[in-house]
């Protein structure tokens, strides 16, 4: 039995003055595993991610999570627009591990290579980058803190196929080499299928189906899940 790096028991959260949120959430992520979270737009995926990251305080339930990195869906809002990318990177390193600071330049250079960014981005501010470049900066920042589990909220949806493939490969590599667990949120079912071993399906704030990737794709039980997986209109 492998270790659990993140576990939620009966977690509930509702936005103030609203009926939206997540309910009865029971999920866990094993060390070194990649778990997918799928569901239609507005069903509560980002809300759940923010609860796990502690950005939203849950109303009830238990939540246990090891050191966590977070790739935001809205990374534009999450990156300080006044600072250069280099400053942002160094801030993460300083916050995490002061001792690593002398080696910061080297660490940053390696990370840039990993996410396939050119060194020139370092002296740009986030708003001077293209959407895809900014997304990779966000990914690099999440990884610089050496997390045990990475919450990745639509991490590749702003990227073109070639970069998408590189980022997926990078996540797979980190998963293998550093035993990094990943909770992967995406509406891109092709990517989810390639990457995840286990999938939770979220609808209206509740988990309505779960199972091994193969089972979810080959024998979905819910009509909702079947619709979610049906992208035939794009391939015909």
């Amino acid at each position: 039995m492998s270790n659990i790096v993140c576990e939620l028991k009966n977690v509930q959260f509702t936005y103030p003055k609203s009926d939206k949120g997540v309910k009865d959430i029971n999920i866990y992520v094993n060390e070194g595993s990649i778990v997918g979270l799928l569901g239609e737009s507005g069903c509560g995926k980002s809300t759940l991610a923010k609860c796990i990251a502690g950005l939203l305080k849950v109303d009830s339930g238990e939540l246990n999570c090891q050191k966590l990195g977070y790739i935001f869906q809205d990374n534009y809002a999450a990156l300080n627009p006044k600072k250069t990318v280099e400053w942002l990177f160094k801030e993460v390193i300083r916050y995490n591990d002061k001792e690593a600071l002398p080696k910061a330049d080297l660490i940053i250079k390696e990370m840039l290579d990993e996410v396939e960014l050119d060194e020139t981005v370092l002296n740009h501010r986030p708003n001077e980058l293209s959407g895809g470049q900014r997304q990779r900066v966000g990914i690099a920042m999440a990884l610089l803190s050496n997390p045990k589990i990475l919450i990745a909220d639509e991490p590749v949806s702003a990227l073109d196929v070639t970069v998408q493939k590189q980022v997926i490969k990078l996540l797979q590599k980190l998963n293998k080499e550093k035993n990094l667990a990943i909770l992967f949120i995406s509406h891109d079912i092709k990517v989810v299928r390639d990457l995840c071993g286990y999938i939770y399906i979220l609808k209206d704030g509740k988990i309505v189906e779960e199972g091994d990737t193969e089972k979810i794709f080959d024998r979905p039980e819910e009509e909702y899940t079947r619709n979610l997986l049906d992208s035939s209109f794009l391939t015909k």
Partner: protein
Amino acid sequence: MLTVKDLKIEFFDHELPEVAVEDVDFVLEDGDILGIVGESGSGKSMTAMAIAGLLNRKDLQKSGNIMLDDVDLLNSSRATLRSIQGKEIGIVFQDPLNSMNPVLRVGYQVEEAMRIRRKELNLCKEDMKKAAIETLASVGFDDPERIYRSYPHELSGGQRQRAQIAAALIMKPKLLICDEPTTALDVTVQKTIIDLLKKLNEETGTGILFISHDLGVVKALCKKVIVMRNGLVVEEGTVDEIFGNPKEEYTRQLIY
């Protein structure tokens, strides 16, 4: 309808000038749907912003020609641009959160283009609200009233994207510019949006400039495609040509 000629955009906010877009030429004919594809950083958004007349910044220099019918969008006064934006051009930005006003309710922002012409069209508040709710429903919301009342931060990523599409469509503009409009949407909603854009194009002849890295979506929607790389247009043709028989190695990489 839209002609872009010799478009060049250069940034001067760092020691060395950086060319973001160069020698970009293309034509969008009446009622056409033109896709722009190309790798990250290739200049797609900059081209779109230039057409939308939104590159009035002192840290950059732009040259060339962008004509929407007989108006020069690159060299017009701010007042001319203001009257064209919203009325004749609808825009969906790549960063939905950043391009919405955080302190105004979503409904108010969806009505914006209509509000500019309120007097001219003799519309009352209720007319605008009705149109906004209908447009919100058309982009796949089953609770448009709630969305109408919400603030942008109260919407999910995909909901914001759809609210922006609604804002761009409400006045059925002559030209619609969509910069990665479906990145946060699941396939069901993606299909709704594509069908909606197709219908708008067929019924009102709206010309659409559609930027996307999702080639499946481009194939399903567009008639013609241009491929950009490093600020240049490297290939152009009909969807069948580009997808069936790509000439550039780079285009092949994007497709497979």
